[in-house]
């Protein structure tokens, strides 16, 4: 391995890890919902991209940071919508039904995105595009640093929300022992709805970040982000937020390394093999979720 090769490898890793922030955010959303409801919301990544699409409405009106904020709010709204349509009224002992209804929702959201933009890729603004950090021959993209920073802030805020507020307390209580939580007077439906809204907020941010990192939005992006998000959730440990964060960064980094090493046609095979390695040796993921049944 020459010096250039090492440089390339390091650069690939750095780019990948920074991009992995978006995977981490999506993974957190999946894991949050799974941790609280023990059900999976397959429409989550599509809703996140959908929120970014909704933020296109205000692109001409407000400066870029507010566009991202709008996307986060739109994500929260979509989260509430998905909760009411796909989860609220389906009995708890029909997990397959919620799986299918979220699949239906995923199809609707994807189709709406195509329909309203006639499938054409939409320009999405990024911050700090002309800035970059140069460490020797390594180059760290300014806009990815922004994505990373924003992701980190979102995670810190989430942590504060979960650990320091009543809502966060209720969310964690319902996740660990739903029956006991109800006995203590916490409204399950209200808590679940708020979880979806919080996850949606996060998702909207993630969608905006994906758009900013690529530079264009397209409905094509929804499916691969869903798959990567799920992989990240499983590797991180179902229900574990720190797990999702670390797994997201890892998957982002390794994905780029695999691509550098074996090319783009085999890259995803290796990402999946990474998943299988985890499933075989650490089936509960990087961090087993705190307490609780199942």
């Amino acid at each position, binding site marked *: 391995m020459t010096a250039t090769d090492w440089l390339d490898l390091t650069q690939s890793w750095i780019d990948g890890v920074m991009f992995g922030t978006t995977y981490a955010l999506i993974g957190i959303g999946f894991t949050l919902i*799974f941790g609280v409801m023990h059900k*999976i919301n397959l429409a989550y990544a599509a809703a996140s991209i959908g929120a970014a699409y909704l933020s296109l409405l205000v692109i001409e009106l407000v400066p870029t940071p507010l566009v991202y904020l709008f996307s986060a709010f739109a994500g929260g709204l979509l989260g509430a919508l998905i909760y009411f*349509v*796909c989860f609220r*009224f*389906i*009995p708890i002992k*029909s997990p*397959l*039904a*919620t*799986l*299918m*209804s979220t*699949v*239906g*929702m*995923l*199809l*609707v*959201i*994807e*189709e*709406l995105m*195509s*329909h309203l933009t006639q499938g054409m890729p939409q320009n999405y603004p990024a911050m700090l595009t002309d800035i970059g950090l140069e460490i020797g021959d390594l180059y760290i993209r300014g806009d990815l640093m922004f994505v990373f920073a924003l992701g980190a802030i979102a995670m810190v805020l989430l942590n504060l929300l979960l650990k320091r507020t009543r809502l966060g307390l209720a969310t964690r209580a319902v996740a660990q022992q739903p029956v006991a939580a109800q006995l203590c007077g916490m409204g399950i439906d209200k808590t679940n709805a708020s979880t979806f809204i919080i996850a949606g907020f996060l998702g909207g941010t993630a969608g905006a970040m994906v758009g900013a990192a690529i530079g264009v939005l397209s409905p094509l992006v929804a*499916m691969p982000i869903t*798959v990567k998000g*799920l*992989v990240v*959730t*499983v590797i991180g440990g*179902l229900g574990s937020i720190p797990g999702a964060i670390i797994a997201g960064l890892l998957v982002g980094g390794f994905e780029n390394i695999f691509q550098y090493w074996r090319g783009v*046609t*085999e890259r*995803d*095979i290796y990402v*999946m*093999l990474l*998943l*299988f390695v985890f*499933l*075989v040796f650490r*089936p509960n993921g990087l961090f087993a979720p705190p307490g609780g049944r*199942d």
Partner: protein
Amino acid sequence: MDFYFGLAQVIGIHTLLGFSAWCVLQTGQVSMLQGGFFAIGAYSAGMLTTMWQWPILPALLVGGLLAGIVAVIVGFPALRVKGLMLVVATMAFAEVVRLGFFNLTWQVSSPDGMIGPDGSLGFGGIRYFPSNGWSTLEVCVFIWILVAVVFLVLGWLDRSRAGIIWRAVGEDELAAQSVGINLTTAKVSAFGVGGVIAGLAGGVFAHYATHIEHSNFNILLATFAIAYPIIGGLASLWGVLLAAAFVQGFLIEGLRFLGDWRSLLFGALIVVVMLVRPDGVLRRREPKAGARHA
């Protein structure tokens, strides 16, 4: 009339796909791998009839068998994971299969030039049916004979001890184990049978379409596969048929007059069906208290 026979062919293929998912779902495993087995059957049967001039039925059976063998091999590690992790793991493996076919290039020369799978360009020229003068009606009848045979076999399995064991494992693994049921045999056998049926369906599909490529076998196909038994109701094989006819016949072809609203309605209707009938359209009839089961 030709159009209706063609549509019946499509419904038949999707019914078989649904049957394959039904087997696995009986044991409580949600497998996103049926699309992968479908692909294995498609490529093998297609290659046998096109490159080595095999007759159709042996080619289909070999395709099914190969898919079944892979299914059994995959069934063993699948034992280690449950629930959402199994969904993600099978999704990941299905992607690996798809990527495998994306990279598969194996061509032989023929009077018409080189034929066989050509990597990302796909595999065309699978013209067994038209070249041998099969009419649309004849192919339709052929497919539905296969469907009927599989239906009868699965119906017999369902009523036999094997079916009871599968359903027991699906209802409550711990209880099943405690009465001495071997979980491994039950789950792996379900995977295997499901794999064979999916492989058969895939082989038929390849000959129906005359050209297959990796993008035919994506996650959406796997989602359709599990959608049929979930929408139709796991209790009944007729439900699978109904669901396949509903989705392929009504939602996709019947709603054509709606123009581009068709795609939007598709996802929305799935959501609605799940809200109205979370256990599937044809529900399991709850036994009356005290009634004896034959």
